[in-house]
């Protein structure tokens, strides 16, 4: 009965937990397992185990994505520069990230003599964990979401705000002038660009009236006049551009990579790190790239919604989670490709130019965008 309902697309799941329970039920092993746990009065343990399995799957997905992204980054740079890029390890160098990981694990873990040992060790974890936590309220596909928080967007912005602290900790604890300079720059940059980022996001929230990422995505499904997808990029072109620029600045990628400007500050705030701790900074950087691109897609490019999905025959409704996941991943990779492409094209800005653009152009424009959205919304245009 349930299966039939799923087949015709009548029931929707709120999050992945319910989807997993449904699948287990469908195979017919949920009840036996549940009974075993109930015998010991430990039903909550089953729930915890399922949630942990979800988190593990998310973790593996993110790590694989990050490994693929490092490879993709090198390939895109190589293509722009008329080179080959990694070619030897695996087919077209696809296993190169694995070898890099093995190399980094095998390296000596050096802590400088005058470093603040505790803070120095804590910083890589503090930057890595928020980079993963951001994914919790992100919908990867229809009902593929760990938890649909009703303050999802606020949660994402708040969690991303932890990373400047970790960067400052790393820079301060290294006891190295380059690290400290890089950390101070990174914090200045993050603080100035979070404001236009949040303001551009608020315009979207005005349109949907909800902070929940699922609501934002649902509001973007469907089309206008049958051919323009109802994505917020068409309602908020200025907001989209501001959000994109601000998020590239948040990621610290090339036109704005002051935290690790190689030609000025050796490697910025992680100059002193080696081995596994360096790998964590590296992973966090690419996890951040993926998460920020995913947020751009969720807010402005319709998230997992495929504009013409409703016209798909009902017999394929069971495939909706898979189709939506594919749509989400493709859109995210388009944004990631844009970030890499921009990185290969433009040189680094100067720090005063960065702050000028942030405070004198981006924030006024973001406020203007917010005002225009509010006026048009009150006038009932949207």
């Amino acid at each position, binding site marked *: 009965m349930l299966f039939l309902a799923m087949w015709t697309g009548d029931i929707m799941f709120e999050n992945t937990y319910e989807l997993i329970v449904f699948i287990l039920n469908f195979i017919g092993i949920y009840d036996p397992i549940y009974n075993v746990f109930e015998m010991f009065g430990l039903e909550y343990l089953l729930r915890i185990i399922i949630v942990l399995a979800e988190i593990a799957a998310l973790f593996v997905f993110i790590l694989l994505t990050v490994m693929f992204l490092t490879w993709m980054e090198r390939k*895109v740079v190589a*293509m*722009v*520069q*008329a*080179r*080959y890029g990694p*070619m*030897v390890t695996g087919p077209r160098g696809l296993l190169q990230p694995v070898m890099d990981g093995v190399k980094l694990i095998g390296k000596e873990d050096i802590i400088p003599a005058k470093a603040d040992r505790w803070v120095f060790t804590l910083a890589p974890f503090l930057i890595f964990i928020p980079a993963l936590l951001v994914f919790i309220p992100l919908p990867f596909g229809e009902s593929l979401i760990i938890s649909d928080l009703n303050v999802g967007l606020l949660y994402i912005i708040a969690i991303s705000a932890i990373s400047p602290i970790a960067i400052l900790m790393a820079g301060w604890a290294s006891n190295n002038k380059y690290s400290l300079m890089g950390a101070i720059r990174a914090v200045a940059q993050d603080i100035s660009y979070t404001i236009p980022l949040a303001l551009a996001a608020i315009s979207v929230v005005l349109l949907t009236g909800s902070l929940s990422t699922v609501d934002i995505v649902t509001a973007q499904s469907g089309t206008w006049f049958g051919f323009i997808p109802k994505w917020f990029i068409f309602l908020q072109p200025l907001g989209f551009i501001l959000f994109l620029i601000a998020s590239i600045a948040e990621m610290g990628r090339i036109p704005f990579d002051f935290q690790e400007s190689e030609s000025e500050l050796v490697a910025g705030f992680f100059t002193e790190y080696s081995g596994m701790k360096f790998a964590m900074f590296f992973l966090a950087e690419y996890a951040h790239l993926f998460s920020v691109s995913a947020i751009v897609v969720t807010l402005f490019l319709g998230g997992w919604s495929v504009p013409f999905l409703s016209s798909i025959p009902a017999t394929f409704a069971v495939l909706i989670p898979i189709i939506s996941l594919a749509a989400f991943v493709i859109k995210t990779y388009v944004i990631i490709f844009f970030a890499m*492409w*921009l990185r*290969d*094209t*433009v040189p680094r800005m100067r720090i005063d130019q960065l702050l000028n653009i942030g405070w004198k152009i981006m924030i006024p424009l973001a406020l203007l965008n917010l005002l225009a959205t509010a006026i048009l919304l009150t006038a009932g245009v949207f």
Partner: protein
Amino acid sequence: MTWISKDWAMGGIIKGLIVTLKHVFRVGNRPTVTVQYPYEKMPVHPRFRGLHAIDEDACIGCGICEVNCPNSTITIVKHNTRWYPQVNMGMCLFCGICVDVCPMNAMKMTGNYELADYSRESLIYGPDRLLFKKEVN
């Protein structure tokens, strides 16, 4: 009013983005120019100055190359009853003067540039590694 004349549409960046995109998708004549080095080598120019080679029959052991070498790279050593130059590749600057001054045209330079080695001693190329015999035809 300087802000009016500024390129607010960021035309320069967009132009650059288009150029790099053409490279990514290989639009027009934009091939990959590098080669997969250890497996595939670039052709070497005919007058490339690499490792030396000495014609075993032509060299008379006169020592003119030794005298003219700006880095004192060459020493004349005995090898099977005759005297031949020995070249310390760690000091050679590949100027080619030794080739130019040789009165017998015995000194040549080959296209071999893979000269990295594990010790300083193995960089000293004695006559046993430098001599070649011209085929008589």
